[in-house]
């Protein structure tokens, strides 16, 4: 990525993320605390990650799916995201050795 594009990405992202923080504050008590909007908002972070993860796992083939199983297991057991990530990466690296 060119340097000018990188600066544009960082600054525009910063502006958008800051705007969300600011408008949440400004709207304050007027945001709905129940109902359709609230439920959609509560579900959104998780569904974004689901959307992010699935195509990548499918693209990584069966090795990716095995690794995903391990990542879920390690995250659930230890709560350590870094350890889970390293386990998944190590699993894919090992399973890519042509013996399999």
């Amino acid at each position: 990525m060119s340097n000018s594009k990188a600066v544009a990405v960082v600054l525009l992202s910063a502006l958008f993320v800051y705007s969300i923080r600011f408008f949440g504050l400004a709207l304050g008590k007027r945001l709905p605390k129940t109902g359709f909007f609230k439920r959609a908002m509560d579900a959104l972070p998780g569904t974004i990650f689901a959307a992010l993860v699935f195509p990548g796992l499918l693209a990584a083939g069966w090795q990716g799916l095995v690794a995903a199983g391990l990542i879920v297991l390690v995250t659930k057991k230890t709560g350590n995201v870094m350890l889970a990530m390293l386990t998944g990466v190590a699993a894919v690296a090992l399973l890519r050795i042509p013996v399999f």
Partner: protein
Amino acid sequence: MRETGGKRLNLKKDGEFYKGFRASVPTGLGVLTYGLVFGVLCAETGLSFPMLALMNMAVFSGSAQTLIVGMWNGGFPVWQMAVAAAVINVRYFLLTAAVAPLMEPYGWFGRAWRVHLVTDENWAITMAEWRKREVTVDHLVGGGVCVGLFWFFSVMVGHSLGFTLENPERYALDFAFTALFTALAVNMWRGGKDIFPWLVSAGTASLAWRHLPGAWYVLLGGIAGSVAAALMKEAE
């Protein structure tokens, strides 16, 4: 803008700033381990040191920054990356709306810089404390400074440790972001009620990934899933 009397930051040990800072240190250690990994990935992805320093201060959100860096070399247009960063952080609306009453003593300038220091970690700590007793916004600010320092320095150290490998596929480093996102997704799982929305999200995303350019799959999948979640409980 006007700052009402006695509202200046008190940095002493008995002050709310110090209490909030200290209460956030344990989560700061969690931020530190994640920051180190993220910094290494940033070096691997090719972000420069000053660019990363700028992003740490200006964006100041682990999830948004991870998403941006994950898309960094994908050839996406600038606006798509920024919109994706915003969408993943829409929840901040709800966080900062909840602390709006704490900001009331301040004018708009005083609120404007304080609100930038709201992250998941210090927000949760201040909200928990607030349930037990009256707190001031300094508690939140102290926690934000704590999380911010841990984040900034761990990411920059990770970046400095960062190495570039000849042959990243061999070590499955192309899988690193997917692995990281998978682990983060596990932490966002809210139980059985997420099954249907996540299936909708995954299905929509996989279709869009095949047929649409750019990052549309992230946005469309996420939005379809969250609408599914909202509709689901309407039907009950």
